[in-house]
C-alpha cells in the first residue's frame, strides 16, 4: 500500500515534469524573441532585460529550462501580455468561481447519473433501461458548447426562466452546471448500470435473497455499497477535470472562471496567460487523479497493488 502511494506520487511528479517540459518546448516555437513571450511586445527595454536575466535567456537552452522551473517553483507563472499582471494572481482570483461551478455540476451529475443507473439496472433490457441507455449515449455524444447554447435558447430566450449568462445568485449557476454536468451524468449512469448488474449476480446477493431479505434491503445494504466503488472513482476523476477550468462551458455562460481566463488568453494570443492556465489546469488534474487513486485503495480493500 505504501509502495503504491510512493509509486503513484513518483508517476505524478514525472507527469508534471513532462507537462512543464512540453510547455517550455512549445514556448520556444512562439515566433520572435522569447523574452516577449513572457512580458509581451509592449514591454520596455528594462523589463525585457529583467526577464532575460530572470529566465536566463542569454544562456544555453538547458540553463533556460532550469531557470524556468525555478521561477515556477517560486509560483511565478509569468505576466499577462495584455494586463501586465502576474498570471498566477489572475488565476487564483478566478479559481473560486471555477470551484463553485465544478461542484454544482458534480452534484447534478451524481444525482442524475445514479438515478438513471438505478432505473436502468432495476429492469435490464426493459423499455426504461433501453431509454436510459439511449439518453446516456446522447449525453456522451452531445458537444458541451452546443448543448449550452440549446439550453440558453430554450430556458433563457424562450421560457425566460434563467439568465443566459453572467454571475450572481443561485439562478445563474443552474444552466452552466447542467451543461457541464451532463457528460458526467451520462458516464455515471453507464458505470452505475454495469456495476450494479455485475454485483447483483454475486453469490452474496443470492445468499441474501435466499435468507429472505427484502429487495430493498438487499439493494441498499449489500449491492450499493459494492457497486458504487467504481462510481466514486469516476466522480473523482471528472471533478478533477472540471477543476482545471471548463473552457467551453465558462465561455458560453460568461462564467468568470479559469476557463474563461484561458479563452481571453487564446483570443489575444496572450501566451503567458494560456500556458499558465494550461499548467495550472494540468497540476490540478494530476493532483485530483492521485487523490482518486489513493482513496480507491481505501474504498476497495480487495484491490492489492503489487
Amino acid at each position, binding site marked *: 500500500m505504501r509502495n503504491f502511494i510512493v509509486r503513484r506520487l513518483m508517476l*505524478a511528479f514525472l507527469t508534471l515534469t*513532462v507537462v512543464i517540459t512540453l510547455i517550455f518546448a*512549445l514556448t520556444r516555437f512562439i515566433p520572435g524573441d522569447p523574452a516577449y513571450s513572457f512580458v509581451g511586445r509592449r514591454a520596455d527595454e528594462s523589463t525585457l532585460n529583467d526577464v532575460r536575466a530572470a529566465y536566463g535567456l542569454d544562456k544555453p537552452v538547458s540553463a533556460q529550462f532550469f531557470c524556468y522551473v525555478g521561477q515556477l517553483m517560486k509560483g511565478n507563472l509569468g505576466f499577462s501580455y495584455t494586463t501586465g499582471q502576474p498570471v498566477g494572481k489572475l488565476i487564483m482570483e478566478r479559481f473560486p468561481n471555477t470551484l463553485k461551478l465544478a461542484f454544482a455540476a458534480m452534484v447534478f451529475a451524481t444525482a442524475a447519473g445514479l438515478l438513471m443507473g438505478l432505473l436502468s439496472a432495476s429492469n435490464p433490457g426493459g423499455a426504461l433501461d433501453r431509454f436510459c441507455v439511449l439518453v446516456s*449515449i446522447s449525453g456522451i*455524444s452531445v458537444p458541451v458548447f452546443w448543448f449550452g447554447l440549446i439550453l440558453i435558447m430554450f430556458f433563457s*430566450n424562450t421560457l425566460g426562466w434563467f439568465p443566459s449568462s453572467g454571475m450572481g445568485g443561485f439562478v445563474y449557476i443552474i444552466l452552466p452546471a447542467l451543461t457541464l454536468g451532463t457528460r458526467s451524468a451520462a458516464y455515471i449512469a453507464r458505470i452505475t448500470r454495469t456495476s450494479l448488474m455485475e454485483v447483483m449476480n454475486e453469490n452474496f446477493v443470492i445468499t441474501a435473497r435466499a435468507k429472505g431479505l427484502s429487495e430493498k434491503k438487499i439493494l441498499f445494504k449489500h449491492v450499493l455499497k459494492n457497486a458504487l466503488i467504481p462510481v466514486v472513482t469516476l466522480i473523482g476523476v471528472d471533478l478533477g477535470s472540471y477543476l482545471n477550468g471548463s473552457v467551453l462551458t465558462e465561455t458560453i455562460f460568461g462564467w468568470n472562471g479559469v476557463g474563461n481566463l*484561458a479563452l481571453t488568453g487564446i483570443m489575444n494570443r496572450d501566451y503567458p496567460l*494560456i500556458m499558465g492556465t494550461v499548467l495550472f489546469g494540468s497540476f490540478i*488534474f494530476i493532483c485530483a487523479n492521485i487523490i482518486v487513486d489513493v482513496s480507491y485503495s481505501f474504498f476497495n480493500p480487495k484491490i492489492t497493488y503489487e
Partner: protein
Amino acid sequence: MNKKTKYFLRNNKLTVFLAGVLLMMVLSAVFAPLIAPHDPYEVNLEKTKEHPQKDYPFGTDAQGRCVLSRMIYGARVSLFIGVAATLSALVIGVLFGAAAGYLGGAADNIITFLIDITLSLPGLLVAIAITVVLEPGITTVLIALCFVGWAGFARIVRSSVISIKNSDYVTSAMSLGSSSWLIMLKHILPNIVPIILITASLRIGTFILSEASLSFLGLGVRPPEPTWGSMIASSVNYIETAPWMAFFPGAALAVTIFCFNFAGDSLKDIIDVKDIKM
C-alpha cells in the same frame, strides 16, 4: 453473413438506421460540391440571418452565407479529421502497444510509463497548448489529437497482446519454431482486430468532438473554411436573433458522434468481447 449477424440486424433496427444516417453524412461530405445548394463561401449582405426557407433550408448566417451548404462542406473537415486522427493514433497505438505487450521487459516498462503519463494529461488543455503555438491548420489539429489520443489504443492493444501471448496456440507456435514476426502477424494481430475496431469507433466520436471544440475556440482549421465547430462559434452572438445558425451544425455534430458511439456499443454486442480476454 452468419446466423448471429442476421439475428442481430433483425433485432437492431436502430443500429441499421443510424448506420444509414452515417453513410448519408459520408456521401454528402464526399460529394459536397454536387449536393450543396449554394457556394459555402459566397457572402450575400442583402440576405443576412434569413430564416430557414425554401431557398435556404437551414437559413443564412450573419454574412448571408447558406448554413446548409457550409454544413455539408464542414462535414468534410469533421469526418476527415475524425477518421485521420483515429487512424494515425491507431497506428501509433498498435505499434507501441504490440511492442510493449510482445517484447515485455524494459521495452514494456518504458512504453507503459509513456502510456501512463499521456493518459494522465488533461487532453483538451494539452491540445490547446499545441494548437495555439503551431501554425493553425488540419495538420496541427491532427498532431495535437494524436499526441493525446494514441495512448488509449496502446493500452488496450498491450493488454490484449499479453493475454493472447500466453494462450496455448501461441505457445505451440513458439515451440514449433515460428519466428516472432510470424507469430505477431499470423496469430496475435488478427485476434486483436475486433477490440481495435470497437475502440476505434468509440474514439472517432471523441476526436470529432475535440476537433469541434478546438474550432469553437478558434484553434482549428482557419476561416473562411467552414467547420461545424467554428460555425457554432460564430453564431454565439446571434443566439437570440438567429438560433438556426447554431442549431443545425451542432445537431449534425451531435448526430454524427452519437452514431459512432452507438456503433461502438453495438459492435461490442456483435463481437463478443469476452471471447478475447481483456
